[in-house]
């Protein structure tokens, strides 16, 4: 009612995608998850696949992804989403099947399931949101935490001798024969969001064409975990994350 009073239909140029419902999101201000959710909802809607999509949600901040996007969902154990997606796709190939995972879920506890799914060429899409920290549990070190970066479990900064190095799982995916599309995106600026949406659509289309597995990484922020304002977190990401996690397509063998 209120929206209708303010926004006259003739003036409407943009609206929330139909698949994104009105459940209030639990994400922190400035978090990239809400934007990635919106892109997924838009792309599935535009592909006309609401009725035939199955998402696999992770353990982590996006555990409740199923609350916000109106498609069928399966909630996975921590890190196991690609194994679940593998079966859900192979046993029902007509469906669009994707996982939605954070860096702890995918690059940490679920690295084995992710790598083997990608290498098998399961016709699924792994949506990978990398904000270099464990958000939901309160800001602990992730496999992708940058060198020197401080978290609650590396309060003096990530130290190679103690913690090893930030894991570039997307680069690993690009080496694998089973992957057809490997890309790294961001959602911190409007131009990035537009490009990310195209990447997502391409990955979804490839999976439905049976071209193999795709991974779309979203380099993202965690203003709560990083203890920064949303704006400062975006700037910090661009200054620190982008040089290490380089944006763009790492592999696209689906187009030929």
């Amino acid at each position, binding site marked *: 009612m209120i929206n209708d009073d303010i926004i006259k239909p003739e003036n409407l140029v943009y609206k929330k995608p139909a698949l994104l419902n009105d459940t209030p999101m639990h994400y922190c201000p400035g978090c990239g998850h809400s934007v990635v959710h919106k892109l997924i909802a838009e792309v599935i809607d535009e592909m006309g696949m*609401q*009725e035939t999509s199955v998402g696999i949600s992770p353990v982590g901040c996006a555990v409740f992804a199923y609350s916000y996007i*109106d498609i069928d*969902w399966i909630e996975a154990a921590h890190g196991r989403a690609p194994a679940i997606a593998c079966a859900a796709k192979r*046993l029902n190939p007509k469906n669009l099947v994707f996982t939605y995972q954070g860096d702890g879920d995918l690059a940490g506890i679920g690295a084995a399931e992710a790598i083997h799914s990608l290498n098998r060429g399961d016709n699924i899409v792994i949506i990978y949101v990398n904000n270099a920290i464990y958000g939901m549990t309160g800001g602990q070190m992730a496999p992708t935490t940058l060198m020197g970066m401080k978290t609650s479990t590396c309060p003096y900064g990530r130290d190679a001798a103690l913690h090893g190095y930030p894991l570039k799982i997307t680069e690993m995916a690009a080496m694998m024969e089973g992957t057809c599309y490997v890309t790294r995106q961001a959602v911190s600026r409007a131009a990035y969001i537009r490009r990310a949406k195209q990447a997502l659509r391409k990955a979804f289309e490839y999976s439905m064409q049976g071209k193999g597995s795709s991974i779309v990484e979203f380099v993202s922020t965690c203003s709560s975990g990083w203890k920064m304002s949303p704006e400062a977190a975006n700037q910090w990401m661009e200054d620190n994350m982008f040089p290490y996690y380089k944006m763009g397509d790492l592999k696209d063998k689906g187009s030929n």
Partner: protein
Amino acid sequence: MEDNEILLMKGNEAIAHAAIRCGCDGYFGYPITPQSEVLETLAMEKPWETTGMVVLQTESEVASINMLYGGAAIGKRVMTSSSSPGVALMQEGITYMAGAELPGLIVNVQRGGPGLGTIQPSQGDYFQSTRGGGNGDYNVIVLAPASVQEMADFVDLSFTLAFRYRNPVIMLSDGVIGQMMEKVVLPPFKPRRTDEEVIAECPWAATGMRGRGKNVVSSLELQPTAMEQHNLNLQRKYQEIKEKEVRYEEYQTEDADYLIVAFGSAARIALKAIELCRQKGIRVGMLRPITLWPFPTKRIAELADCMKGILSVEINAGQMVEDIRLAVEGRTPVSHYGRMGGIVPAPDEIVGAVEKMRA
């Protein structure tokens, strides 16, 4: 092969053939002795070219059980098989399946433990199977085959029970039953369900919305009142299973003074021991639990009143004996005889244990 043809094969092979013939949609497994023939037989049979059944060798038992979770979540008849250390690795997925109320079949061809243990047979996973095995309050239906024929027959039975109650089912076999060759008649061929039949049977499954509201398959609920209610619903379901699905077989209990309780390959050895006891004039009978959970508590309690003693024969340190004692409640002496480490009890050892009870 013809219907009703009598074949000679291993228990593990029988499971694979039965899976193809009873409309199984997917098998996901990782090699481990002594059960690798299940996956090998399926790979040789290529059911993806005939029934459309998916067969996939996984990277780990963790992946296997989560593929089971994924397949079950979309309403498919899916199974995995492994042996003890591999099934230990699957416990995370099994508790998630129980929590999300997903049907599925896990075959455990047990070997000796703890740890890497041995590749020889054991029944050391009784506790793990009948108590849940993973985190939280849940139960898994546990069937204990004692022959190659039952290895074949229990595949379809497992799926029936799994879907009737939306609950994981474990076939708790062992290295003897898995590896030995025996006569078997494979179950009649049954086609896989169509997509429409899956949707009709599993309106809760994540099959894609297709004209209905969305389905979410999950074991998560952060509201304590709602989570307690979910637990109460699960417990009600388990109670119903206990009331309706207890299965066991009795052998010469009518005139028996002593009762042996044994399952799986231990029950086969016990049969010989009973014959030897009866030659010595000791009247011994046997109750063989076919379901280990739900346990035949009521029947054992009834039998306890007319027995001078009950002997639990197991290939472990004494696990099922605890359930027998809970059933008997002190009304008659209960003993255990078992071997471990891959050794199976010999019939004369069991006779000795019976004689010790008489002394």
